[in-house]
């Protein structure tokens, strides 16, 4: 059909544009900082390494050991959070949900903080974050479904806020018990959210979780559309809704947990970015998902580059995303019903 063709062309255009912006941002991020490097130098440094010529110059070290892992981690976390947000919004038919408003980020953070508290390695911290995120979303869904409220849209968010504040109390308890000289600063800085400590090792520990969760969402992308229908309708059309919903929640929560385990709680990306993507390519999930992921990567990379260059000391990126996210959330709150009907 004509309409279909037009949408496909538009989506490819938006995707290509997003990738170009992402690459440009990556070059800017690799070049800026206290040791500036020109795009030409970056190109030749990358080209030399790809050709197998490893050199020990300062520029090489800055690009490969410091900035490249940071760029990769910021982009991966941004993509993961945006994809998770898009999936949650679709699943709950609610434009206001996101990993942070659902309490998933807080649950994952509690899991990760406990992991840090017990001195666990990164994989265990990641798994603990996943378990915490799953538990949080399960509790939020259970409470919201029992409340049977007139305003399901807002009830889900309020339940998320309540559960998140309980989890924050639990995190405070862990901080209170933590050793004030080593663990406490580690936990506090990690919670603020930062990519300062990003290393190649972190890239490799983050990558599998992000790839697995995004692969599941991409593979099921078209079918996920049917979860936006009323449950009876989707089931009558032949979808095993409970199973599909469970798998999608698990995948989105894994993506969130991976992001939180590396970078702490970075809010708003999962809420704001899917809306930007939806404005451009519409709600159809197999088009929306890749666009949201690319936009999320570009958005968080831009935020992180700003965070480490606008001031003499680094600003936690969560502060910048909140400055962007809060006004957008208020606008969404005002238009929520209109946007989704």
């Amino acid at each position, binding site marked *: *059909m004509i*309409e*279909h063709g037009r*949408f496909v062309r538009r989506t490819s255009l938006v995707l290509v544009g997003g990738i170009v912006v992402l690459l440009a941002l990556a070059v800017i991020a690799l070049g800026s900082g206290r040791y500036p490097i020109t795009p030409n130098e970056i190109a030749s440094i990358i080209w030399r390494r790809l050709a197998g010529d490893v050199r020990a110059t300062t520029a090489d070290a800055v690009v490969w050991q410091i900035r490249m892992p940071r760029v990769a981690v910021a982009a991966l976390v941004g993509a993961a959070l945006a994809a998770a947000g898009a999936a949650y919004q*679709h699943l709950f*038919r609610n434009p206001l949900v996101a990993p942070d408003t659902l309490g998933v980020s807080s649950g994952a953070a509690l899991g990760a903080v406990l992991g840090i508290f017990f001195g666990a390695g990164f994989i265990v911290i990641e798994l603990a974050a996943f378990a915490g995120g799953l538990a949080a979303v399960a509790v939020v869904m259970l409470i919201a479904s029992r409340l049977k409220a007139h305003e399901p849209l807002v009830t889900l968010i309020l339940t998320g806020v309540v559960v998140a504040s309980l989890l924050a109390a639990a995190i405070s308890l862990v901080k209170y018990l933590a050793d004030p000289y080593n663990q406490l600063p580690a936990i506090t800085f990690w919670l603020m959210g930062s990519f300062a400590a990003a290393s190649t090792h972190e890239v490799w520990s983050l990558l599998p979780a992000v790839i697995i969760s995004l692969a599941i969402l991409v*593979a*099921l*992308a*078209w*079918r996920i*559309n*049917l979860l*936006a*229908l*009323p449950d*009876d*309708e989707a*089931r*009558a*059309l*032949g*979808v*095993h809704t409970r199973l599909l919903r469970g798998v999608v929640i698990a995948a989105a929560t894994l993506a969130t947990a991976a992001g939180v385990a590396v970078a702490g709680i970075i809010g708003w990306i999962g809420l704001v970015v899917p809306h930007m993507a939806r404005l451009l390519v*519409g*709600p*159809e999930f*197999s088009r929306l998902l890749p666009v949201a992921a690319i936009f999320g990567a570009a958005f968080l990379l831009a935020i992180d580059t700003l965070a480490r260059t606008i001031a003499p000391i680094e600003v936690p990126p969560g502060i910048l995303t909140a400055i962007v996210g809060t006004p957008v959330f208020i606008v969404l709150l005002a238009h929520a019903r209109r946007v*989704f*009907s």
Partner: protein
Amino acid sequence: MLDVRDLAFGFGARRVGADVTFALAKGETLAVLGGNGAGKTTLFRTLLGLLPALNGEIRVDGHAVATLPPRARARRLAYVPQQHAPTFGFTAEEAVLMGRVSHLSTFARPGSTDRAAAADALTRLGIEALAARPVTELAQQAPVLILDEPTASLDFGNRARVLAEIDRLRHGGLTIVFSTHEPDQALAHADRALLLADGRPLALDAVGSALTAANVGRLYRVRVRTVDAGGKHRVFVTE
């Protein structure tokens, strides 16, 4: 094609209706009538396997509905619920394509066959009818179609279009069950009628014998008479 034997339906301990038995052959149409809250929608959800039957058995094409996996069930039974909540602003084509999900494997996306089926369903009923869209379910291409008050909120023209499509489908060999609040509609567009009072059949017969003035009057607790409207047409009038 659709065999229902001694069916009781409801929600767990709360029994909504019972004693429903009928068998519909290929191309037969059953109209279900009953007052508000008589259990029509609950009956339909049970027929579709969305609610477990409390007693009795439902077979579609010889298979017990209760034990069919969702995809196999959806390839035999299609359901047009009463209210379609518009969601998310999908385009008409995207919404109709969702009707093809039972023909696709878990990780597949719709291909050209599916687009053709969707386009066919859309051209037949038109985008305006999408408001109450049996269009998605037409794309599903199941041999049994269950419609819950398909004309409830439609304007005069769209109502006629949907009813004409129901006629076309039953003459094309589909087995159809639909509910309606218009006895005239049942008389004109169905072969048999089930009059449901408090979940139990008050009458279940060929439309001509089930839809008498006396039965319709008892069903809705009003005084009713019929007026001949030429040919075999009859209209029900309240007094």
